[in-house]
């Protein structure tokens, strides 16, 4: 019997039952069914349940879903709503202003897009895949939920030959070998591969998205708001989103870029501030919080892409590669397209039994001809422009916000700033500037690491300050500690899944911030009450409550000392994002 052989070997191993990898799996099984080839594949997912540790917005166009599942509309594909109202809203602390559609920058009108709960879509994709396999007798797929890939295995020629799945790596059962290992793991462990082969010339820029799902009194299904301004008035890149879903549910979220100057962002609390806005208060009135969670978004885009999307025996997909388009907040269709393209190349590789880089790299070539790459290329200077012109976020946005609070619309403020169109202007301004300055041809842009701008003595600018709305209902606001409960974490003692490399480094880091009355970024920015400062005999030590961790990896990104690494857990430990 297959399971009695000694070494555990498959043709393909997918690391992460991700959006991208599951698209790959479906496409590959379809292709194999047509061609009649036989192959074996294992899907490793660190969550106990498929989809259980996936978190997204998510509003997405249907074009990739259409080709992956042509009949999805006739199935039970889980849809929360089809967007029929899309707003771009500028927020003051007290009022808001919905920008007229004509003023909207392209890509922000989401009409016709699907609102989905990605964790559920992923679970659906797994179920559908299982069903599909009933009619594909030559294909064997094993589903390993609750088993993470912990380490990448190489042979002596540096070819990727599989992953370690259990603690030691000594027993036969500890390793899974494959001709091709595909990483759709958001960089969790594939960052090691990128590092080993020095694939990324630029660091990835990361944001963290914090998200809550509420049950509310009204039906907002199909309505989408993206917001700019309050509560992000300190120059930090980011914005809010509200998606109306079926059964009177509402997604409330905030995306906060981690390459801020402000070392103490506390995204989870920013999200609470966001909800104090009278408009949100109204939406959430008498509602109940159902779920909370957080996850990273790779925002570096084009310039953060690795040189190679594949090496001997391995491929990178989706957020692990960095295909999210930050202007549109589009990651889902991009990740799925990666899977679609990778499947085509893998199918060929399986036929020819060639798994070297020369064969697999065709995936990079093919992806280059899709919307994924043209989108990324088209928006390649977007993030950089804000970095390069800090006034946009530090001055323009807070002034607009104030204008709205004062006058109910931003025009006065906009005119004060010398702009005619408060929304289009920055985008047009950007574009114009890019052309004028010749940046369109400026070639490669270098990013700094996320934490590079942190200053322990950072002072919040006057413009960034806002008065907290004391009329906000306490029932709508959650401390970080309470919020964690809604992330449904389940932890198994002994996981020790966050490495702190050198305790003394942490002590010094903590002190360097505390003398300025600040706290160290891992503590302040943690979305889940994991990191803390313990006092012992007069010393401040870095402590962790690992059982609260929701695997967002923000601490790893914001640690100015690169002294923290978040590893995958064993036994499916961690949050339960089902429903997020």
């Amino acid at each position, binding site marked *: *019997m297959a*399971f009695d052989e000694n070494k555990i070997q498959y043709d393909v191993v997918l690391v992460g039952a991700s959006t991208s990898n599951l698209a790959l799996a479906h496409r590959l099984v379809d292709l194999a069914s047509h061609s009649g080839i036989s192959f074996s594949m294992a899907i490793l997912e660190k969550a106990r349940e498929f989809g259980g540790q996936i978190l997204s917005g998510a509003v997405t166009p249907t074009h990739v879903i259409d080709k992956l599942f042509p009949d999805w509309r006739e199935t039970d594909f889980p849809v929360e709503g089809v967007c029929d109202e899309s707003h771009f809203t500028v927020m003051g602390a007290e009022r808001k202003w919905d920008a007229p559609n004509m003023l909207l920058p392209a890509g922000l009108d989401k009409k016709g897009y699907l609102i989905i709960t990605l964790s559920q879509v992923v679970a659906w994709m797994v179920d559908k895949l299982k069903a599909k396999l009933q009619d594909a007798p030559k294909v064997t797929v*094993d*589903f*390993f939920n609750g*088993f993470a890939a912990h380490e990448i295995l190489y042979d002596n020629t540096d070819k990727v030959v599989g992953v370690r799945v259990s603690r030691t790596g000594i027993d036969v059962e500890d390793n899974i070998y494959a001709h091709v290992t595909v990483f759709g793991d958001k960089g969790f462990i594939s960052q090691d591969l990128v590092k080993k082969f020095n694939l990324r010339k630029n660091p990835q820029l990361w944001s963290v998205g914090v998200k809550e799902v509420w049950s509310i009194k009204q039906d907002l299904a199909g309505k989408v708001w993206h917001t700019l301004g309050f509560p992000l008035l300190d120059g930090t890149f980011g914005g809010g989103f509200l998606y109306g879903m079926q059964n009177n549910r509402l997604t409330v979220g905030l995306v906060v870029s981690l390459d801020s100057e402000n070392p103490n962002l506390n995204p989870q609390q920013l999200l609470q501030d966001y909800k104090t806005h009278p408009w949100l208060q109204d939406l959430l009135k008498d509602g109940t919080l159902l779920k909370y969670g957080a996850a990273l978004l790779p925002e570096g885009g084009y310039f953060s892409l690795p040189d190679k999307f594949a090496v001997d025996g391995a491929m990178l997909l989706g957020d692990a590669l960095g295909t999210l388009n930050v202007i549109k907040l589009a990651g889902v269709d991009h990740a799925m397209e990666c899977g679609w393209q990778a499947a085509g190349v893998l199918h060929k590789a399986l036929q020819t039994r060639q798994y070297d880089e020369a064969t697999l790299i065709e995936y990079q070539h093919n992806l280059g001809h899709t919307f994924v790459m043209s989108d990324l290329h088209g928006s390649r200077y977007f993030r950089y422009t804000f970095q390069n012109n800090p006034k946009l976020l530090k001055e323009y946005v807070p002034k607009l916000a104030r204008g709205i609070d004062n006058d109910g619309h931003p025009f006065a403020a906009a005119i004060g700033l010398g702009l005619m169109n408060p929304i289009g202007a920055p985008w047009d301004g950007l574009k114009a500037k890019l052309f004028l300055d010749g940046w369109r041809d400026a070639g490669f842009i270098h990013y700094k690491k996320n934490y590079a701008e942190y200053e322990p003595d950072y002072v919040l600018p006057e413009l960034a300050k806002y008065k907290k709305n004391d009329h906000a209902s306490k029932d709508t606001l959650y401390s970080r500690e309470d919020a964690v409960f809604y992330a449904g974490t389940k932890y198994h003692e002994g996981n020790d899944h966050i490495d702190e490399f050198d305790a003394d480094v942490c002590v010094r880091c903590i002190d360097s911030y505390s003398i300025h009355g600040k706290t160290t970024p891992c503590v302040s920015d943690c979305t889940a009450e994991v990191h803390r400062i313990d006092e012992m005999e007069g010393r401040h030590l870095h402590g962790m409550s690992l059982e609260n961790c929701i695997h967002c990896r923000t601490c790893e990104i914001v640690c100015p000392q690169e002294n923290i690494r978040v590893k995958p857990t064993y036994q499916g430990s961690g949050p339960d994002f*089902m429903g997020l």
Partner: protein
Amino acid sequence: MTNSAVKDVFVMIKQVPDTRSKAGLNPDGTINRAQAKRMLNPFDEYALQAALNVKKQTGCRVTAITMGPPPAIEILYTALEHGADRCYLLSDRRLAASDTLATAFALWKTIEHLNGFQMIFCGLQTTDGDTAQVGPQLAERLNLPQVTYCEDFEVVGDKLHARRVVEGGWQRVVSELPVMVTVANSYHPLEFKSLRGARMVQELMRNEALRSQYITTVDLDVVGADPDLTGLKGSPTIVAKTDKVGSIGGNCAMHQGQAVEALVREVTLQTNLLEFAS
């Protein structure tokens, strides 16, 4: 190992509504059975681990037994993933609405049908029935000694040395085999499924012939149980009525803004705190 007195252990497991996730609960807290996900009774996880630990110690065969509708096969897969050797599913529509007595009767018949064991492990209780009765009722039918609330044990020769919880402490007992043990949740938690087990189960799900080597489905006729003594007919109790219980708390009487002495006095006067003073 092979010459241990223990060669076969049975573990009784049940599938219950998933209370860990909120899905499947009606707003009033009752179960929406159509929507509810199902899971292995959390208490039975300890029982399963106990059986697997005996296997580790003695090399015995572990048999998992459940009574439930056909989808209950899922928890048998779980048992196999964790290292059980074979499983039995007692499934029969005539079993519907069995209370604990009727359940124990049907399980007794199944165990008799299998014939031959040295230990039976049960969970302390189920999260849906919540009675902790099935185990001892089974032991009564089988005329076995029992160790309930067992939190640790060891097989020594042909005896079971066990530690059980009692009020305010614990008790060490020695029992002859065969014996029925209900395992407390202070026993070792269920270890994670093994990759090998997970692989095997995937193979079983694909391969019916292989599956039938590991999982046997039986009904009342196969095990020779009188249908009149189980199901609704064989149940001496019925649930006649359910009332909502008002939620507790919610209207906090706040005491503040006075001298501490007055605050505390207010509370001691308005509550029955002093009644409990020693």
